[in-house]
């Protein structure tokens, strides 16, 4: 890879952001702890009967994971804006959308992937039937990148404002409600023995669309935020 080529720029950005997250790995664990705590609290509130917990298991895990990801969303571009790195990214000769796609990929890899890895444990806590677990994992594998992508656009829009946390949540929530309905819907269908492929395919279609459009939208929004 020649220094200055676009692939070198993406590699440098990936390496830098992964190093930064590794140096702050304590913070990176927060979403995971949050999800575990939320899921672990439900049996205390609703009682330990397996029948009750089984009914709410998939939905609870879904909500806990999406909220846990929201926690870390606000920091996606904030530190880069505050120390001027974002200006350097915008001024670099490479397509900003591609660089942002790298940052979004890192957000997914470092927040969503660890969360998905602990899902089997969370499923055990709530007595999720074994046959539903694969459906839940597939649904989450499609829904979490969607949240990273949609969230990145909203973060790019709000990053220029101070104390944008609440506004960001208000912007993101309505956009991820359909994701939640289809994802948790697939799991509920699988649990009651109904066909669950359609909602998963819908999620896949949205993910494909968002993969192409969200980085472009985020780049445009970020340029507006910088002015």
């Amino acid at each position: 890879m020649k220094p200055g080529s676009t692939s070198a720029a993406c590699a440098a950005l990936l390496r830098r952001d992964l190093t930064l997250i590794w140096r702050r790995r304590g913070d990176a664990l927060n979403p995971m702890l949050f999800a575990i705590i939320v899921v672990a609290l439900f049996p205390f509130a609703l009682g330990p009967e397996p029948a009750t917990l089984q009914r709410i298991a998939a939905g609870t895990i879904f909500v806990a994971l999406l909220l846990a990801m929201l926690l870390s969303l606000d920091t996606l571009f904030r530190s880069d804006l505050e120390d001027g790195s974002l200006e350097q990214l915008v001024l670099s000769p490479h397509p900003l959308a591609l660089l942002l796609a790298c940052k979004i990929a890192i957000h997914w890899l470092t927040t969503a992937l660890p969360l998905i890895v602990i899902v089997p444990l969370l499923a055990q806590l709530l007595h999720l039937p074994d046959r539903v677990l694969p459906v839940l994992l597939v649904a989450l594998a499609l829904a979490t990148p969607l949240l990273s992508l949609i969230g990145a656009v909203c973060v790019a829009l709000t990053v220029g404002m101070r104390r944008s946390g609440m506004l960001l949540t208000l912007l993101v929530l309505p956009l991820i409600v359909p994701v939640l309905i289809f994802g948790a819907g697939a799991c509920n269908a699988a649990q009651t023995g109904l066909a669950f492929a359609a909602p998963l395919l819908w999620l896949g279609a949205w993910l494909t669309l968002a993969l192409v459009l969200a980085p472009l939208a985020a780049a445009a929004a970020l340029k507006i935020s910088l002015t």
Partner: protein
Amino acid sequence: MSTVDPVIAPLLQARSLAYARNEEPIFGPLDFALAAGEVVLIEGDNGSGKTTLLKVLSGLLEPTSGEVLLHGEALTLAKLSHQVALLGHLLGLKLELTALENLRFAIGLGGLRRGITPQLALASVGLDGYGDQPLRSLSVGQKKRVALARLLLVPAALWLLDEPYANLDRDGIELVNRLLDHHARGGGAALITSHGAYAYTSGTPRRIALQAAA
């Protein structure tokens, strides 16, 4: 679009360039040209729009009227490719990374000038041996020197430096002047802002005066 031959066209040219924020004029209209090998000082009081002018020239902000030509062609962010390096008040360095890691990232993003390495660049800004220290442990002036080392590494012909003398000691000011001379001799050009407290000492640079809009 202009049809000027890029060989004889000045490196950077501003034509009746003006910028207004929310209808309130920040600077301009300004006309000036910057040839290769030139260092030009932008002078003005606090709030006279020096930083904004640099942002417009780098393409970060759209001018309200007028145009910026780079090698005789209209400037767009997409066309900037490796030609402009901006050093602003925010240095664009990560405190958690070491000086060398920061510089390697800059090279990955902007490319590498011929015949220089990150170690050499650090040595020439007087930070030999600080390469593996986290940036957080360096002083404000030393961080600024790391940002200056980035300018040496990235192959940009035009340097836009916002208050490059701020936070630097006497040696540091001397260093900035040496870097600017070196850059100009190598066919580069630089625009630097200053509120007048320090000055570029080698020769008498051309000055562009900005006045705070009433």
